[in-house]
């Protein structure tokens, strides 16, 4: 872990209760960088870079199943836990930490 890793920005995404289940939320973290935040049906919050490694598909709009999301562009299946693309395709997207405080969801980046 280097110093950069230690200093993180915290963004309020919304109340846990208000976040819709199995539908991505888009968070703009830089001018041209977005993060997709998902509330899974088990209540867990997961966040990954909003960009499929294949052709830049918008992952926040994909169909969510368990701990995976299917990219709407060409149906790549991506694990929300570790960002890994599932076989037979390959690649990886960046994952982000999230935080739950007093029922509010935050994204760290």
């Amino acid at each position, binding site marked *: 872990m280097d110093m950069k890793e230690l200093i993180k920005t915290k963004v309020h995404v919304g109340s846990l209760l208000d976040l819709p289940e199995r539908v991505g939320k888009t968070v703009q973290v830089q001018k041209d960088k977005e993060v997709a935040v998902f509330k899974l049906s088990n209540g867990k919050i997961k966040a990954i870079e909003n960009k499929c490694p294949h052709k830049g598909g918008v992952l926040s709009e994909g169909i969510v199943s368990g701990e995976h999301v299917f990219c*709407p562009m060409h149906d790549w299946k991506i694990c929300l836990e570790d960002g890994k693309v599932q076989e037979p395709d390959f690649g990886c997207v960046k994952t982000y930490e999230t935080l739950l405080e007093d029922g509010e969801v935050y994204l760290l980046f």
Partner: protein
Amino acid sequence: MDKKKLVLVGNGMAGVRAIEEILKVSEDLFEITIFGSEPHPNYNRILLSKVLQGDTKVKDITLNDWEWYEENNITLYTGETVTKINADMKVVISDKDRVIPYDELIIATGSVPFILPLPGADKEGVTAFRDIKDTDVMLEASKNYKKAAVIGGGLLGLEAARGLLNLGMDVSVIHIAPTLMERQLDETAGKLLQKELEKQGMKFLLEKSTEEIYGTDRVEGLKFKDGTQLEADLVVMAVGIKPNIELAKASGISINRGIIVNDFLQTDLPHVYAVGECAEHNGIPYGLVAPLYEQAKVLASHICGQEAAPYKGSVLSTQLKVSGVEVFSAGDFMEDGEKKSIKIFDEQDGVYKKIVLRGNKIVGAVLFGDSKEGNRLFSMIKKEADISDTEKITILQPIGEEAGASLVATMSADEIICGCNGVSKGAIVQAIQEKGCTSVDEIKACTSASRSCGGCKPLVADVLQLTLGSEFDASAQKEAICGCTSLSRDEIVDGIKEKGLTHIREVMNVLGWESEEGCSKCRPALNYYLAMVNPTKYEDERESRFVNERMHANIQKDGTYSVVPRMYGGVTNADELRRIADVVDKYEIPLVKVTGGQRIDLFGVSKDDLPKVWEDLDMNSGYAYGKSLRTVKTCVGETFCRFGTQDSMGLGINLEKKFEGLQTPHKVKMAVSACPRSCAESGFKDIGFIGIDGGWEIYVGGNGGTHVRGGDLLYKVKTDEEAMEITGAYLQYYRETANYLERTSAWIERVGLAHVQSVLDDKNKRKELNARMDEALSVYRDPWKEIIEDKKTTKELFETIGV
């Protein structure tokens, strides 16, 4: 132990395949460097014709992307050509004066297209068809020019010609022999192929040899030896390839037509191997993908110091599919004094099959119009199977399961089952035994076998059956709707009806889904089936909808959306146009485009702006994103037209108003033309109406998309009311019996026009269908208005959180 230095010259399919095989043996043996002349990572050259046809991008045919090289610690120099091997120093030298030492060297320089030495061959607009660069030249030419000439009527030439045809060019194929593909097909099959391709619009000039390419800077045409000429502003040379032996020649390696190699792919320079199209084994340079995979395996074993079975040459087979024409040939397929043939020729269906025998042994085969048996025959040919105790004619007939299974049983583990992706029988068996695959689809997901052309599916199924033996569950092999279940569409819909299921989750639980929350295939399908069975009670599940249908807008490649408001029957007015124009100004919409369906499409709208744009437009959604009625295209009809005999706009508007928002298995397009000139292209729509004297003709199952299909005449009716009634019943029958994502053109072929007519002929059934249709239509509300009025949904789906 220090790693040995391995250098590969040539970053193509053969060389990289050899590297993959080496890495399979050991990842720690070599420090690997690869040189490639092209600026791309390794891609599938076989699929270039798909790129040319425009539906595939270079990235889709990439076999090993940049990351693969990184992950395997391979140093890659692209756009750089090795010009010399210095065997004394054991180094290679590139055209950028890079000097890289090697302990072992593999040459895999492939082939170069043979360019006929004609006057004018260097003019602009003359190209080969070998790599991505050539493909780009052809794509570019098709945008500005019309007339293409392809020199060469072999496999490659015909693929190029088909691609150019798809790009809208006028294509002539010039061939020196009297029949096409004479190296792969006998005369009968060659002639059949020509007839079929002529039907598709290709023109042929056979027994012609080109004398000169004329023009100023750019080509303007061809002159032939018989004095005739042909105008052309693009010339593609596809007369053959020759092994690329420049480097070997310059470095003193023995060459003939190709680089001469022994049974272990070694050249006569120590520590230097050659593989793929540049190599010549036993007098034969191979130009196909299967032999190159076999060679790569042998080379890898040998170079890694393992006991390797020597390479003994390959029997060749060709399997070609030029827009629906299946052609296959293998082995030695020309009869002569000592080889006799057995033929079947079914002129009616355009099917021709031939096997060639030497004594009792099968040595070659040609199949045209139906190449299902290709793989099996190819295997028999490779083994020179003795058929003396078989009823000869049965060899050409489809075989029962037992025979199929026994064929794969006799295959060795390293025999390739899937030629497109180079998947061996062994790899499939491994996927079944170690990864627990139990269906063809799972094997596809796990190994990529049958992922590209699908031709090897039956063989994959045979391997599965053989490997699982008594555990093999034939029922799991029927058309399951996806990998999460073994149930077919009909079983699921029956289950929903019989058990009164009302939610997606409930369907999955009760019907024993194998994944907890399904996948991107079954979730939208179940969502549709539940609503179809129970239109008034079922509540649509937005998280099981594909993005476009969830957002009620079409997502574009940059993540923005496009918006298409309804314009009933393609008729609009000044008020609407003014509102649209104001919206374009207010939201700075970058592109306004008129669609093929007579509406206006606003491109580049951000997700957050969508609800506001809809509100300001104050029009209904055109469902341009939906598995639903899209548009009803109309001609102007009797209102203004001098020929139109009917009120096409009136009927079109009524149809669109009645059926808008209907949920269907796939998109539905309609058109109404007031007379047989069919200006609204009624013959190529899911449902098309053509005005005739005293009524309408109704055509169904037309499609102008990927698989063009002319519609069939369903009925002639006298009045608009009858037209509406037939349409309602027909669409409802489609809704109730089609698979999700099955277009009407595919559905009508599956269930049969006569069957649908017999259902609709029955007055009572027609009434019932229409009653159920009306029930389904009763729940329609314009989705844009619904979202605008619902602040919660707007926030949940359309809000981006800024930092």
